[in-house]
């Protein structure tokens, strides 16, 4: 396993994923997303250094969710145009059209997940934001603002546990019913948000006294560049999709978006 994916320029990697996702949205058969999804997972496996335990765990959850989605999109489907054409799906005789639509929607979601995991599991969040600033002209004020906010995450998790315990000691009962639950959410939310806002204000002052002015032109300690490899990756992701579409046209599986959904 190499770390090629981890070393790609984060912005280009994100753009590749976005383009692939957008193109896939127009494809409307189960075959194309299935094959492309498998290719993406293989790609991640071959060229990425990934925490596989976590990856597989996440992916299993997504698979479970997609079964739910498959079921709802069959159960709540519109009246099919050709109800007499049916197919055997597990134990049921169902209209073929409905099953195809549901399968393609579900497989598409699984492929989206594979693409997005390829990005998430091989990208350092800070590097991504820094690269967005350098390659995509994200304003520094916004970029460092997001980083500062992101830094609060572990802090707030701890704080939420504290608040929960603190309220328990006050004798706040566990909520039952919708109204009490909403009230309880509000009770947790206010100290958490108030603390976060106060810290955010202080952080802003601290950043300004370190000379931060939000000027667009700035020097970067960690520089991100776009290299030949990045373009190669981007084009091969798209080429692969085109090749798979070509194969599925040849095999007669392919179908476009024609307002079916």
């Amino acid at each position, binding site marked *: 396993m190499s770390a090629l994916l981890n070393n790609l320029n984060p912005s280009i990697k994100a753009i590749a994923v976005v383009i692939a*996702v957008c193109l896939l949205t127009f494809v409307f058969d189960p075959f194309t997303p299935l094959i492309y999804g498998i290719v993406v997972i293989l790609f991640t496996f071959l060229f990425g250094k990934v925490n596989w335990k976590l990856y597989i765990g996440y992916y299993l959850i997504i698979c479970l969710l997609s079964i739910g989605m498959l079921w709802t999109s069959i159960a709540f489907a519109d009246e099919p145009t050709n109800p007499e054409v049916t197919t055997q799906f597990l134990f049921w005789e169902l209209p073929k059209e409905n099953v195809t639509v549901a399968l393609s929607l579900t497989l598409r979601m699984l492929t989206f997940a594979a693409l*997005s995991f390829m990005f998430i599991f091989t990208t350092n969040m800070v590097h991504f934001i820094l690269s967005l600033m350098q390659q995509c002209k994200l304003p520094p004020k916004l970029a460092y603002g997001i980083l500062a906010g992101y830094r609060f995450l572990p802090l707030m998790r701890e704080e939420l546990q504290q608040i929960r315990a603190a309220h328990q000691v006050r004798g706040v009962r566990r909520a039952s019913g919708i109204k009490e639950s909403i009230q309880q959410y509000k009770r947790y939310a206010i100290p958490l948000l108030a603390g976060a806002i106060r810290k955010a204000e202080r952080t802003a002052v601290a950043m300004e006294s370190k000379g931060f002015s939000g000027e667009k032109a700035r020097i970067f300690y960690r520089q991100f560049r776009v290299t030949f490899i990045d373009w190669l990756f981007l084009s091969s992701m798209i080429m692969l999709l085109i090749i798979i579409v070509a194969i599925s046209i040849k095999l007669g599986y392919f179908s476009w978006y024609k307002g079916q959904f």
Partner: protein
Amino acid sequence: MTNWRLKEIIVMAVLSVVFGIVYLAFLPVGKLLVSFMGPIGYDFIFGIWFIVSIIAAYILRKPGAAFLSETIAATVEMLLGNAMGPIIIITGMIQGLGAEAAFAATRYKRYSLWVLMLAGVGAAIFSFVWGYFRGGYAALSTPYVISMLIVRIISGAIISGVLGKAISDALAKTGVLSSFALGKQINKARSVS
């Protein structure tokens, strides 16, 4: 971005990060409702997913607050593992634009409860149109789709509009917003009365 103070940007970013997590946490709730009721299950709680744009716009009262906060929240949601991947960012942008449209219609001058509810409705409509083209609603029967839209509009008005205002007002009472537009307005109202 030039007429934004740094602390306003950071407060917006922090709110977005917090609600990005809330958004992610409510996905399983939505999934659960869907498995009972079908796709309409989401629509009952859909307002949750617009709430940060209403809160940020109401507190900061700056053009762009609704759009940016919703976009950042969606980005955070993606980075923490939403299965939709980058699509969710586009979804966030569209929802944010819906809310932003309502505030823009008042030229960023009015922030009454009705305007906030309208912003929730705006986000609901925008997100519904996007969902229609992307999420496969057309595969569902027409009366069902219409009832989805109605439920989502109500949810947007109530959950994001009314609840969003309630949370912001409760925050203002703690005094932490005193240097932001909402807090200043309250202080002014107090010193006049």
